[in-house]
């Protein structure tokens, strides 16, 4: 038996978690007090080596249930397993300072995501083709190649200005296998409806998909900040 970690929340918010929550393999999800935080965990018998899409969905579904109950949760990266509850508690408490400060700062906020499959849908910001890139490449390919090249530097495209102050912070990710681009936005829970309206009002995003509200995935770890 082992303890599987789904996410972290402020301890004072644990009472708001939904009852009867089930996770991977139907395991019962429960809060585990860890200093100022609570870890969202489940006892598992062991996980198969092969990762299934169902497990990925189940991990996300647990976090979404907590968010839907009104709790701001910092998502734990997938498949973090501890020998037992005591081990999980100990490791979480060792990192309580940073995560607790993050959750205090972001309490009441959620992550929303705008998914764009074609670069032509994005607001037109023409990048300079990088050396070695073919000028004959279509604009979609050129955009995604450019985003990959700039993975460690400030991003060339942003929706933040177009969406206005409902967006508190933004992180942009090129999805694997040229699937598209994901814009992660930090949004106050009360502003979700306005956020959706602003996204739908942008002609450039007419083909985009909005996902959320979600736990904090892109904003759970520090980054060279676009906030």
């Amino acid at each position, binding site marked *: 038996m082992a303890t599987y970690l789904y996410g972290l929340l402020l301890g004072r918010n644990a009472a708001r978690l939904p009852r009867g929550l089930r996770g991977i393999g139907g395991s019962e999800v429960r809060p585990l007090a860890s200093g100022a935080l609570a870890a969202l965990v489940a006892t598992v018998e062991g996980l198969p080596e092969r990762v299934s*899409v169902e497990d990925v969905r189940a991990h996300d579904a647990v976090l979404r249930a907590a968010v839907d109950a009104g709790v701001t949760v910092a*998502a734990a*990266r*997938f498949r973090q397993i501890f020998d037992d509850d005591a081990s999980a508690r100990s490791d979480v408490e060792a990192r309580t300072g940073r995560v607790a400060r993050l959750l205090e700062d972001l309490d009441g906020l959620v992550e929303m995501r705008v998914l764009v*499959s074609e670069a032509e849908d994005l607001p037109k910001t023409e990048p300079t083709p990088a050396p070695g890139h073919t000028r004959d490449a279509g604009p979609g390919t050129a955009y995604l190649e450019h985003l990959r090249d700039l993975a460690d530097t400030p991003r060339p495209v942003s929706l933040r200005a177009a969406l206005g102050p409902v967006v508190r912070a933004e992180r942009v990710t090129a999805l*694997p296998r040229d*699937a598209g681009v*994901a814009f992660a936005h930090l949004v106050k829970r009360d502003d979700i409806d306005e956020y959706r309206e602003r996204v739908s009002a942008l002609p450039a995003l007419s083909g985009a998909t*909005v996902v959320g509200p979600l736990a904090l995935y892109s904003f759970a770890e520090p980054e060279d900040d676009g906030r």
Partner: protein
Amino acid sequence: MTGPRDALEEIYEPEQLILSDLINRVLDKGVVISSHIIISIADIDLVQLDLRLLISAVATLEQRRAESDKHGHLPLRPPPRP
């Protein structure tokens, strides 16, 4: 009217995008606490993923066609599941 292939792509692409984003954020984002090995996106069997999406898209298309036959018109495109 869109052909069968266009309609299939209309369903397939958003679902593919949503699933790609789900996998990317769950596997590559979030707080790291454990010192144990973290599964990377390369460990997901992506061929099986693609087949699963295709099967799901075909089933959805068939359902919409059945509804079209029943009502005499195509139903409004359902929003992709978040």
